C-alpha cells in the first residue's frame, strides 16, 4: 500500500480524448476532458446513454487506452490497470467456483496473500455488506443484490485508494437499490476512499455524490460539474434535495 499523504486518491484528468471506430468511421466519445477528482470525494458521472460514461470509467481503470491526454493519480500518469484502483462492474463478475468468502478474498490473493490470510481479511468485508451467514455459499446460491454486494466487498477488501463503479445498482429492483444506496453511503463514510460512480439514476447521484459530472450528449456540448453540498446522511424528501433534482432535470432539458 502506498503512503497516505495529502493527495492520496487524487485523480487528475488532462486533455483526455477517446474515439472508437465504427463502420470504418471515427466515433468521438470523449473530447478534451479536463477535471480533477478531489482526494476522498465521491464523484458521480451522469449523462445520456452513449455519452461515454463507461468509456471514461474504463479509461480511469486502465482497461481502455485514451487516444490523447492523460490520467494522473497522485501526480503520476497511469499506464494500464493498477492495484490502487478497484472496479465494480455493472455485473458482479464473481467466480462461480469460489465461495463468497473466497470471492471477496480474490483480490487479496492475487496481490500475494495466502488463502487463509485472505479469508481472515475478507471476513470483515463480508460482514460489512451483511453476508456473514452466506460466507460459504456459492455465487449461484445468491440473489442478484447479494451477488452485487459480494462484488462490492471484493473491491473494498483490497482497500483501494480509488473505487470505480459502473452502474453497480442498475440491475436491482427499487427496494434493494435504495437499501444498497444507504449501505454505499455508510461505506463511503467509513472507508477512506475516492469514488467515481457512473449512474443513470439522478437521485442516486444526488444521494451519494459530493459532485456530479454531467457528460454532454452531443459532442459539441461541454461537460459540467455541479456541487452537491447537502448534509449527510441525506434525505431524499428535503426541499434542497428536490431542488437539486430539478436542477439536473433542467440540465437534461426534461423539465
Amino acid at each position, binding site marked *: 500500500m502506498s503512503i497516505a499523504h495529502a493527495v492520496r486518491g487524487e485523480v487528475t484528468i488532462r486533455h483526455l480524448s477517446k474515439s472508437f471506430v465504427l463502420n470504418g468511421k471515427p466515433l468521438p466519445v470523449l473530447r478534451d476532458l479536463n477535471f480533477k477528482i478531489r482526494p476522498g470525494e465521491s464523484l458521480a458521472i451522469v449523462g445520456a446513454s452513449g455519452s461515454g460514461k463507461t468509456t471514461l470509467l474504463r479509461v480511469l*481503470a*486502465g*482497461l481502455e487506452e485514451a487516444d490523447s491526454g492523460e490520467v494522473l493519480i497522485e501526480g503520476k500518469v497511469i499506464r494500464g*490497470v*493498477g*492495484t490502487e*484502483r*478497484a*472496479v465494480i*462492474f455493472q*455485473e458482479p*463478475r464473481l*467466480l*462461480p*467456483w*469460489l465461495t463468497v468468502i473466497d470471492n471477496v478474498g*480474490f*483480490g487479496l*490473493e*492475487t*496481490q500475494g496473500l495466502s488463502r487463509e490470510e485472505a479469508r481472515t481479511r475478507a471476513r470483515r468485508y463480508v460482514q460489512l455488506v451483511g453476508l456473514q451467514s452466506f460466507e460459504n*455459499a*456459492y*455465487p*449461484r*446460491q445468491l440473489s442478484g443484490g447479494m451477488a452485487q454486494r459480494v462484488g462490492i466487498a471484493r473491491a473494498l477488501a*483490497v482497500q483501494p485508494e480509488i473505487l470505480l463503479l459502473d452502474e453497480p445498482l442498475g440491475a436491482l429492483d427499487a427496494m434493494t437499490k435504495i437499501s444498497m444506496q444507504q449501505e454505499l453511503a455508510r461505506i463511503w463514510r467509513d472507508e477512506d476512499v475516492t469514488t467515481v460512480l457512473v449512474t443513470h439514476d439522478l437521485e442516486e447521484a444526488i444521494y451519494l455524490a459530493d459532485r456530479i459530472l454531467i457528460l454532454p450528449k452531443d459532442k459539441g456540448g461541454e461537460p459540467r460539474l455541479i456541487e452537491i453540498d447537502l448534509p449527510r446522511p441525506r434525505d431524499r424528501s428535503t426541499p434542497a434535495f428536490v431542488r437539486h433534482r430539478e436542477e439536473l432535470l433542467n440540465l437534461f432539458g426534461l423539465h
Partner: protein
Amino acid sequence: MSFETLNSPLATSFDLPGRNRRPSTLGPWIAGRLGPLVSRYGLIVGFLVLWQISSKLGWVNPTIFPPLDLIIAALWEGISSGALLDDIAISLQRSGLAFASAVAIGIPLGLFMGQIRAVEQALDPLLQFFRQTSALALYPVFILLLGLGEASKVFVIFWATLFPLLLATIGGVKEVDTKLIEMARTYGAGPVTIFRRIVLPASVPAIFVGLRLSATTALLLLIAAEMIGANKGIGFQVMNAQYNFQVPLMFAAILLLALLGLAANAVLVLLQRKLCRWSQINA
C-alpha cells in the same frame, strides 16, 4: 446425461432454513422414492424383462438372442473360472493406456490451443479433418506403421479418444467469460494467475464432458482394436465367441463392456461432483 439427473449432493449441501422437508407419511415417501427410480430405470428393466420373455417363449430366435439367465451364467462362468479375468486385464490395460495418453496429451494441448487464438485457428481445419476421419478407417494405416502388436491397438484407441477430449477442452477454454478475466486483471492478476485461477477452473466442466466421452470411446473401441491380431481381450472374446457360435458368451462379453463403460462413467461423474461442487451439474 442420465447419471446426473438425480441426487445431486448439491441439493443437500446447502440447507437454508425453511427449506422444504420430506413429508413424514409413509405413502408419499415411498412414492417419492419410487417415482424417480421408475422413471430412471423403468425402461431398462422393461427391456430386460421383454428380452427374457421373448427369448424363453420363442418370440425371437433363442440361439441368436439367448435368454438372459444363459448370458449371465456364461458371464459368471467366465469370471469365476478366471478365464475372462485375463481378458479383462489385458483390455483394461489397452484402454487404460490409450485413455491415459489421451488425457496426458489432449488436456494440456487443448488448454494451450484454446488460449492462443492463432494456434487454434491454424490447427482447427486439421483437427476437424482428423475428427471426421474415423479412427477405424485409419486402423489399417496404424497397423502398417506400427505392426500387428500392442502398439497399433493402443494407438487406434488413443486416436479415437484423443479428439473428443481435445475438442472439449479447447471448447471449454474458448468459452471462458472474458469479463471474468478482465475483472482478474483489475486486481493485478498476471497471465499465470489468470490461467490458474480463471481459465482452468472454468474449463473443468467442459473437460469432464470430454473425459466421459473419451472413456466410453476407449472401451467401445476395444471390439474393433481386438478384432485383428489379438488372442486375448474382451473385444477378442466377443469376436471369437461369435466365430465359434458361443452366443451366450458373446453377449456376456458385450455386457461386460457395457458394465465397464458404466463404471468408468460413474467414477468420472463422482470425480466431477467432487471437483465441481460449485456448478449445478444437473442444470
